[in-house]
């Protein structure tokens, strides 16, 4: 069974990449069980609790990340440097139980996977 890594590297709502990535994860989960999600760069903002996306007439899809556990997807990783560069830290409230890793360990985790899909 192949292991797939989905990488999120864009902020939500400015582009549709985040929502498309999440749809791809849900679609893939019906075929494959070994899925991990990585949040790097601006992708870390996908993890924030955004409450008011309706103010720019965008659907708040990010709350759907929290249902991934129902699909037995539990491996979530986040880049520590990306967090700190953006003024976030370990105390920030995230919608998922993410493992915060430095670049070296993040790269090691990525090497564990057979395919990488970037959103």
């Amino acid at each position: 069974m192949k292991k797939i890594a989905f990488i999120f590297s864009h902020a939500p709502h400015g582009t549709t990449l985040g929502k498309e990535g999440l749809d791809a994860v849900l679609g893939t989960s019906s075929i494959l069980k070994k899925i991990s999600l990585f949040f790097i760069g601006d992708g870390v903002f996908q993890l924030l609790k955004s409450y008011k996306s309706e103010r720019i007439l965008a659907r708040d899809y990010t709350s759907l990340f929290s249902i991934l556990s129902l699909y037995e997807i539990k491996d979530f990783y986040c880049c520590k440097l990306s967090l700190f560069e953006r003024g976030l830290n370990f105390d920030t409230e995230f919608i998922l139980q993410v493992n915060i890793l430095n670049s070296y360990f993040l790269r090691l985790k990525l090497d564990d996977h057979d395919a990488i899909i970037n959103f």
Partner: protein
Amino acid sequence: MLHTLIQSPYKTNMPLLISILKKKDDFLALQDGVLIALTNSFFLDSIVLSSANLYLIKEDVHARGIINNISSDFILINYIHFVSLTLTNKTQMTW
């Protein structure tokens, strides 16, 4: 001059933007551009040092769930105010 930042600052040539920014310029960040105003973020100090007037579109800040992480150096405005900024500035530069 009015500068508008629409993309995330991490996807923009920020050193170039800041070198072109003059005192008394108006700088407005909207859409993913609002990420520039995050407290303790990488670009915040340099944009504040430019002494331009810094504005953010309120709706975009709320939508991204970062309303509590925004530097007080920025003024939150609505779209009506955005229109007045385009009227008061002779030229506009989009980044």
